[in-house]
């Protein structure tokens, strides 16, 4: 498959009043179309910085990023659902379209279809406070999908949820992503989550981060994330990646 995104020698240094913080040292990574990449690394190593740069929210200091597609659209989803309390679920889900002045009937219908497919149809006219944490996260994903992104950047998308919900929601989100055939880069600090969801797991060193190792995840009978955790290779990967992580205590 083609490389959808090519990252070459990316570096990033933050300049603050007091000091210079080197967040990303030298990262090169190719992302193939349809691939699900998980990025793991200790906290503060620069994972969010990497996604912010890809999402154009932060300037890079050096290196190149090439998107091999015309009018490349990026969907960015944060840890927190960031739904706006004063908007209905439908208005929240179409927020991106609204901002991009692209709230055509066709696009709104697409969002309505997504809400229907993912069991949120009856909540369209409700407000975020009436939804559970997992539902809100699904709305946040639909809001991201609404602008029909070529790639999804997920920054610890489930970490605000409790363990049970987290498993269920990551299963849901995985299904949605696979069904909509999206390319994904997901940042997480949960190794099990990374291994059960991703095709490749990229392990970053501590700050300033570099790629330490990339694991191709090959599980027998790969299906949904919850089932994947039962695969016999799972604990092997877990062990290996764990040893590669610079865990800061």
């Amino acid at each position, binding site marked *: 498959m083609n490389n959808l995104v090519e990252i070459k020698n990316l570096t990033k240094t933050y300049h603050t009043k007091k000091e210079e913080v080197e967040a990303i040292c030298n990262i090169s990574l190719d992302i193939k179309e349809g691939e699900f990449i998980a990025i793991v690394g200790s906290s503060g190593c620069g994972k969010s910085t990497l996604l912010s740069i890809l999402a154009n929210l932060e300037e890079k200091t050096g290196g190149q990023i090439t998107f091999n597609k015309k009018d490349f659209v990026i969907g*960015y989803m944060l840890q927190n659902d*960031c739904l*706006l309390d*004063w908007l209905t679920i439908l208005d929240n889900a179409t927020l991106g379209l609204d901002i991009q002045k692209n709230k055509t009937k066709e696009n709104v219908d697409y969002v309505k279809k997504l809400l229907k497919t993912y069991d949120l149809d009856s909540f369209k006219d409700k407000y975020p406070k009436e939804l559970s944490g997992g539902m809100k996260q699904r709305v946040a994903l639909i809001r991201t999908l609404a602008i029909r992104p070529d790639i999804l950047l997920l920054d610890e998308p489930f970490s605000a949820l409790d363990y049970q919900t987290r498993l269920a929601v990551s299963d849901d989100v995985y299904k949605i992503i696979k069904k909509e055939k999206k390319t994904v880069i997901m940042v997480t600090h949960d190794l099990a989550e990374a291994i059960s969801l991703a095709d490749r797991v990229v392990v970053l060193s501590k700050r300033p981060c570099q790629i330490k190792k990339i694991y191709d995840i090959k599980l027998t009978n790969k299906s949904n994330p919850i089932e994947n955790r039962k695969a016999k290779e799972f604990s092997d990967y877990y062990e290996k990646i764990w040893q590669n992580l610079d865990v800061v205590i």
Partner: protein
Amino acid sequence: MRKSGKISTLLSDKEKRFNLLAFITQISIIVIFLLSWEILTRLGVINTFVFSSPSLIIKTIKELFLTGHLVTHLTTTFLETAIAFVLGIVLGLLVALILYSFKFIAKVVDPFLTLINSLPKVALGPILIIWIGANTKSIIVMALLINLIVSIVTIYNGFLNIDENKIKLLKSFGATKGQILRKLIIPASYQTIVSSLKLNISMSLIGVIMGEFLVSKEGLGYLIMYGTQVFDLNLVMSGIFLLLIFSYILYKAISLLEKKLIKE
């Protein structure tokens, strides 16, 4: 289910009794205060010339009402307060928006805001009279001096407290500065703005009364000041009493408005 229902009604019964008792006590305090004031003046223990008395206050207010002065004084103070209040909110919102949109201006203005905020604004009264004149304009400017800074600071801080992640989200959709203001900052600050109304009305009233002390020819502040100058303590006390009722009603009205606005 039935059990817990019973417990909760029991509790609320107890609460009701508690509240009722508090209310009765409050009324009693007022009645006892007014009665002893009245009785002590009638017995000649305290001097009505200096302390006035409830019956004299009622008589004075009645006279004010019959001569038509009461309505004039009340409407004057009300209009001045209302104008200062509305201007304070509108200008406060506007300045807060400017400070939020232009980080450089905010940075430059910050120490000046603190400086003006710490100054007792009454001190500027005499200058206002010279610059603007002894008229209603001075009174409104005086009130604005007091309420505006508070409005600006409250609303601006509300803006600054908005979740960074939400701003990031909008930016990830490519939102412009204007869109971020319209779609996020202003609606998200709705509550802060509404809650600043209550503080603002108190500040406006303080400013207006202060202004009326200094310049006016009518209004509740004028009534009190004039009473003092001619040593008519009945007039002074009546003025204070009217102001008490007046400010209470204004405060309650704004509280009601606030409840209504936030519910929706």
